[in-house]
């Protein structure tokens, strides 16, 4: 017996409903039905995940999903969610699973940071009529200028990634998301001149042609990793950790290892794809250095190597080690970063906000004089162009977006990716569902989003009198905090508003 009352109610306006059955057809969770005897549509609230597919597609807008008013007796200590989770665990004995990023009520520092603008002196710049540089390049900077015997500058630049704007699509594997979602990301990255990231699932043979705009990932499971794959992208990312689930590995259930996913990961159909929590060949910075250099050797030192870590308590010391390990770029992933599936307790309780992690890593690397050894990519819930600008001013060279990109593709953040029944065709491998995401439409929506952000970034920079991302980088004087305590301001390295 299930003790839980459904969290959401499907409210149908029968005056508007024409019994067209679209809701029934669209819902892979089978929350909608049709009662022949009464000749009307019915619903099962218990199956609804609140993904809004039915309400958005209903031609007469006859459906809305509302949070059930039927709650437990009010209790500030025992929330509905907590009680329901206990019921589910008491029933199943299982670990709770969740999808997407940490939704809990922790401070969002980006929302407590305000940007500066020029007034009177240092006039603001109008990006419509003046050039504004949004390009960035990522990789290690030369330590010194070297000249040959004729006095000409010798090129000693290590491999770099060149981007038209400081935003990339973060790692999401083929398997966790659909073929069409990957194609949308790859095509958008190509059109925009940025990068998308394969995640740990290998690279589908049809997508090698987007290699120039691809970051290929190597994680603990090493799925789909071979010399051709490593040489196909513009950079290689070693995934040590992920903000959505710091300290644990990944696990794509055998039910999702079908067809092309099996071929791309190079494992048999139906077998679980397990990425162990650690890399079993990496127990130290020296071991990490060894993996970095083996990747450089196999790609003849032509590609920058990114090391991605989850933001955790000792992130500054860890980043310092990575910056000395031969890595060209560090990707920091904050605790609100998304995931296709993570144990709920890990997702909701482990890690650090990206704003604090970014500020302390940037400080640490500057203090140690090694900031130019590496570029920094910040991820873990960058939600808007304002977050991008704030992250760069805090010290990032570039940001990663994952959830925002999926939302652009249609994700409504119902947070049930792990179920594999994504009605929007993103986090699913069911052919009837994946075909709902048309990559032709999807890639344009991503291009639109990024174009809009790029214009907004230029506008915000112009307002501050800054005409290049390079001048914004680590420029914390452009930031002020509101409603933060002294310790928070100290870690972020910014002043309070009014100071």
């Amino acid at each position, binding site marked *: 017996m299930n003790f839980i009352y459904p969290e959401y109610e499907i409210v149908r306006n029968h005056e508007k409903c024409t019994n067209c059955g679209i809701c029934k057809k669209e819902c892979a969770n089978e929350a909608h039905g049709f009662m022949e005897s009464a000749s009307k549509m019915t619903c099962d609230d218990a199956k609804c995940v609140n993904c809004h597919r039915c309400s958005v597609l209903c031609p007469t807008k006859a459906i809305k999903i509302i949070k059930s008013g039927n709650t437990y007796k009010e209790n500030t200590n025992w929330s509905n969610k907590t009680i329901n989770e206990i019921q589910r665990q008491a029933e199943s004995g299982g670990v*709770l699973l969740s999808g997407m990023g940490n939704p809990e009520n922790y401070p969002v520092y980006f929302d407590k940071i305000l940007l500066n603008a020029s007034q009177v002196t240092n006039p603001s710049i109008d990006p419509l009529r003046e050039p504004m540089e949004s390009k960035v390049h990522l990789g290690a900077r030369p330590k010194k200028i070297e000249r040959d015997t004729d006095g000409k500058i010798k090129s000693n630049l290590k491999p770099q990634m060149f981007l038209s704007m400081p935003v990339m699509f973060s790692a999401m594997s083929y398997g966790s998301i659909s073929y069409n979602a990957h194609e949308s990301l790859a095509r958008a990255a190509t059109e925009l001149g940025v990068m998308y990231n394969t995640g740990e699932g290998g690279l589908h043979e049809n997508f090698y042609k987007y290699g120039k705009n691809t970051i290929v990932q190597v994680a603990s499971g090493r799925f789909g990793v071979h010399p051709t794959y490593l040489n196909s992208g513009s950079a290689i990312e070693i995934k040590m950790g992920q903000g959505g689930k710091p300290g644990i590995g990944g696990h794509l259930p055998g039910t999702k290892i079908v067809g092309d996913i099996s071929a791309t990961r190079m*494992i048999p159909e139906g077998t679980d794809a397990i990425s162990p929590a650690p890399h079993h060949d990496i127990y130290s910075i020296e071991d990490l250095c060894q993996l970095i250099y083996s990747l450089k050797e196999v790609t003849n030192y032509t590609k920058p190597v990114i090391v991605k870590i989850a933001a955790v308590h000792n992130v500054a010391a860890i980043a310092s080690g990575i910056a000395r390990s031969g890595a060209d770029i560090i990707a920091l992933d904050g605790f609100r970063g998304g995931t296709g599936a993570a144990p709920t307790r890990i997702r909701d309780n482990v890690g650090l906000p990206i704003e604090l992690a970014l500020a302390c890593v940037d400080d640490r690397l500057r203090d140690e004089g090694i900031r130019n050894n590496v570029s920094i990519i910040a991820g873990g819930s960058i939600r808007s162009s304002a977050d991008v600008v704030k992250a760069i001013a805090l010290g990032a060279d570039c940001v990663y977006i994952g959830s925002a990109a999926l939302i652009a593709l249609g994700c409504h953040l119902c947070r049930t990716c792990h179920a594999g029944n994504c009605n929007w065709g993103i986090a699913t491998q069911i052919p009837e569902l994946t075909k709902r995401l048309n990559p032709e439409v999807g890639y344009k929506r991503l291009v639109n989003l990024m174009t809009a952000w790029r214009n907004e970034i230029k506008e915000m920079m112009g307002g501050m009198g800054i005409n290049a991302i390079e001048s914004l980088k680590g420029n914390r004087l452009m930031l002020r905090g509101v409603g933060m305590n002294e310790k928070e301001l100290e870690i972020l390295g910014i002043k309070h508003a009014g100071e």
Partner: protein
Amino acid sequence: MVISAAQLGFRELNEKIKSTSEDACINDCYGQRFIACGASDKTITINGTPGNALGAYLDGALVQVNGNAQDAVGDTMNGGKIVIHGNVGDALGYSMRGGEIYVKGDAGYRTGIHMKQYKEIKPVIVIGGSVGSFLGEYLAGGIIIVLGLGAEDIPMGHFTGTGMHGGRIYIRTNAEVDSLLAENLLVTQVIAEEATPEELTEIESYISEFAALFGMGEAKLANDRFLLLRPNTNNPYKQLYTKI
């Protein structure tokens, strides 16, 4: 092409090896890393002791070491063959997906972790002597054979096959499964049984190859008692989670 590795750093040495399509013979090798990294279509012979990550991402080449090798040999190896006429260190064949590795002597800890296979591509590791703990952890495919030649005791360490969800491990030993379990050399999630003669036919050719490579004459090892380790499920985590 004969290369003396004396006084060469790993980058210089590897550039020399990569610069030619000829076979390479490396003399005076003293711990240079990443030799034969990603190499295909050639034979690389090493006299001495190569450093870590020998043959990482190997893609078809034959690598022979007349001596011992160190850690991470054949890491993420894709194809080809590595033959070690000595012992190897830890993390041999990590995440290997294809090709064969033959070691005459012993291997260290964490051998063959997370090897995997796909259709006809199946990696194989044959260890002549003993292996350390954590052999074949997370094994997802392929074959690991431990011959225990010259071993005074059971030729395996603790927690063999933890997290195994594919592949097979053959260990030549007379030890009883119950005592291996009691001493934590084996774990319960692995099915361990004496291999039948039919099952042993799967490894006959690899044992013959081992014998031929290391000059053991006609090998009759396949008639000895082998334990065969198989996973008890290919979905080990399925039962761990709540329903959606």
